[in-house]
């Protein structure tokens, strides 16, 4: 569904292009399912009970209670799109492209189509994913919930989302990505492009709960206008095969601001390669990146961060804390600071260590066993206060986080 031939050409050329980071995935190994394989539904409540339970674990509420709208994609099919908010447009990408010619101006502008084979693959396949647009000056405190669900084994799911917050709009999104309970392996490629106009604010809270043999390659770009704020919260604590993601925020607007908060729990053989990047070109723009990582079993976690300060008066801080819980696991923290202007302030702090024995003993002297003490400390370590959300959503996110941490 690529409108322009040049884009198409670029995508075709990048078809075999390996990603800069992460294990190379053989896309052909996975099955390409057509859109339309799964039946459309009016509401998430029509889903079978076991699917409802699965999506609830990633914060997607089938009743839609406390949500401004819901979107569900199963494999390649957008099966449900419902929105009760007057200030938000929520559509299937396919329908949105038919309705709005101008939407093409937003395609592949925040993420380059030829970034790698995964973006190329997404571009060359049938349009899927969602389009969300918050109308100018609107403020919807209830979040839109979006769910990317893998329902058939060994499929490759591609998703292309476009999210636009018009001038002075405030938009909250919860995304849950998960697999059906009987799915072992699959590939998920999710391209998301965010556009924040002057004075807009988006919070994007994403919980991942994949199966043990799933490969995940999200590609995210965020373009920020003057006085806009983008807050990303990412939670992954369950096993996955590999995930590699490095969302990039382009703080082009004056006083624009991004916050990336990630909570990573590595289990079993998972390889998590997760970073966040902010390109600070707007005057007085700023970024904050905070991550907490815990590695168990044989897991490997690469926690990356890249702050590029390119104009005066920009500020950025990166904080990465890791706890290594097993000798066979690894946490590799790679913070990068790049200053190419005067009067900027970029800093980072990173600490990787083990659980403090003193803390374990303190809890044991209150009657906990050594294991109970260690897991309480780990949960405490990961349960960082997620900032920037309205109170109801903050409470909801806390519940989602607590749920995710139960499995740690």
């Amino acid at each position, binding site marked *: 569904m690529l409108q322009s031939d040049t884009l198409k050409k670029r995508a075709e050329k990048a078809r075999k292009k390996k990603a800069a980071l992460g294990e190379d995935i053989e896309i052909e190994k996975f099955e390409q399912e057509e859109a339309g394989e799964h039946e459309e539904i009016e509401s998430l409540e029509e889903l079978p009970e076991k699917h409802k339970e699965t999506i609830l674990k990633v914060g997607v509420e089938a009743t839609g209670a406390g949500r401004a709208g819901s979107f569900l994609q199963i494999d390649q099919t957008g099966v449900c799109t419902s929105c009760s908010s007057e200030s938000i447009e929520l559509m299937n990408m396919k329908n949105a492209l038919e309705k709005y010619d101008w939407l093409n101006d937003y395609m592949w502008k925040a993420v380059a189509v030829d970034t790698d084979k995964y973006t190329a693959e997404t571009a060359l396949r049938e349009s899927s994913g969602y389009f969300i647009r918050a109308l100018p000056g609107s403020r919807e405190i209830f979040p839109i919930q979006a769910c990317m669900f893998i329902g058939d084994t060994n499929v490759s799911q591609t998703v292309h989302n476009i999210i636009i917050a018009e001038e002075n709009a405030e938009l909250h999104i919860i995304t849950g990505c998960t697999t059906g309970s009987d799915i072992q392996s699959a590939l998920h490629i999710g391209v998301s492009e965010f556009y924040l106009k002057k004075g807009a604010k988006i919070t994007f809270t994403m919980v991942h709960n994949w199966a043990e043999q799933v490969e995940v390659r999200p590609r995210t770009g965020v373009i920020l206008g003057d006085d806009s704020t983008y807050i990303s919260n990412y939670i992954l604590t369950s096993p996955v095969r590999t995930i590699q993601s490095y969302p990039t925020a382009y703080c082009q607007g004056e006083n624009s601001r991004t916050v990336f908060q990630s909570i990573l729990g590595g289990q079993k053989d998972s390889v998590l390669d997760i970073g966040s990047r902010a390109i600070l070109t707007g005057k007085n723009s700023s970024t904050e990146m905070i991550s907490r990582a815990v590695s168990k079993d044989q897991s490997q976690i690469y926690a990356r961060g890249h702050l590029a300060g390119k104009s005066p008066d920009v500020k950025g801080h990166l904080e990465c804390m890791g706890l290594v819980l097993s000798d066979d696991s690894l946490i590799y923290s790679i913070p990068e600071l790049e200053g190419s202007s005067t009067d900027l302030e970029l800093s980072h702090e990173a600490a990787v260590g083990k659980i*403090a024995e*003193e*803390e374990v*003993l*303190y*809890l*044991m*002297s*209150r*009657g*906990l*066993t*050594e294991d109970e003490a260690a897991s*309480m*400390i780990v*949960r*405490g*370590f*990961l*349960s*960082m206060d997620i900032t920037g959300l309205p109170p109801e959503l903050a409470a909801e996110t806390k519940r989602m986080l607590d749920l995710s941490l139960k499995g740690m």
Partner: protein
Amino acid sequence: MVVVKLILEITDLAIEVSGKEILSDIDLYIGKGETHVLLGPNGSGKSTLFMAILGFPKYKVKAGEIIFKGENITNYSTTERVKMGIGVSFQNPPAIRGVKLQDLLKIEHGETDEELSPEMMDLVTKLKFDDRFIDRDVNLGFSGGEVKRSEILQLLAQKPDFIMFDEPDSGVDIENVELLAEEINTLLDKEKKPGMREKSGLLITHLGYILNFVNADTAHVLMDGKIACSGNPNEILEDIRKEGFKGCVECCNPIH
């Protein structure tokens, strides 16, 4: 003669830390319902004895044994000892990020509900805390006095049979010492007649200001890793105040 049932019996104990002997020839017998005081200069080994009784792994038992409630606990883990009824308040407890005081209180009091029980909330108020305070990460940024009060509050939740207090009064202002002393008295059954007391304690203190408010049955003076002197708390304190630790020990007849 009244036969006192012993809750803690330590005989001939020697403790090594990081390959260095810190305590030796320790004999200590604490009867059920009794409160003992452990005095001694800085570095004499008071906290070491406390950690050894609690069973922290760094404190290696080189000789002797520790009997608690008639059971040899010398090789028991800290968890097992605590489950048997030992409780402690630390001199300098660690802060734990993300673990709220409230979470600990629930575990200590055996509660599972989201909200703390009214009974516990009363204790929280009694120790001059509120629901905002107990929502904080335990010991993180607590003031010196708050740390001590939080330790005592946790013991009130636990209700152990034998409690060790490591300097519960150091760094605490006079008003708060009285508050803490009152709760320590509750924990140690002091409102009951001596023969009726069920709870026992070992109170570590430097100069014993808190002893103006908490009555102890016996005092021990630790010097260079040995119990140099045991006896009546008032007399020993009097001696220490007049003659210093050295002078006190010189005129003292060790009981063992």
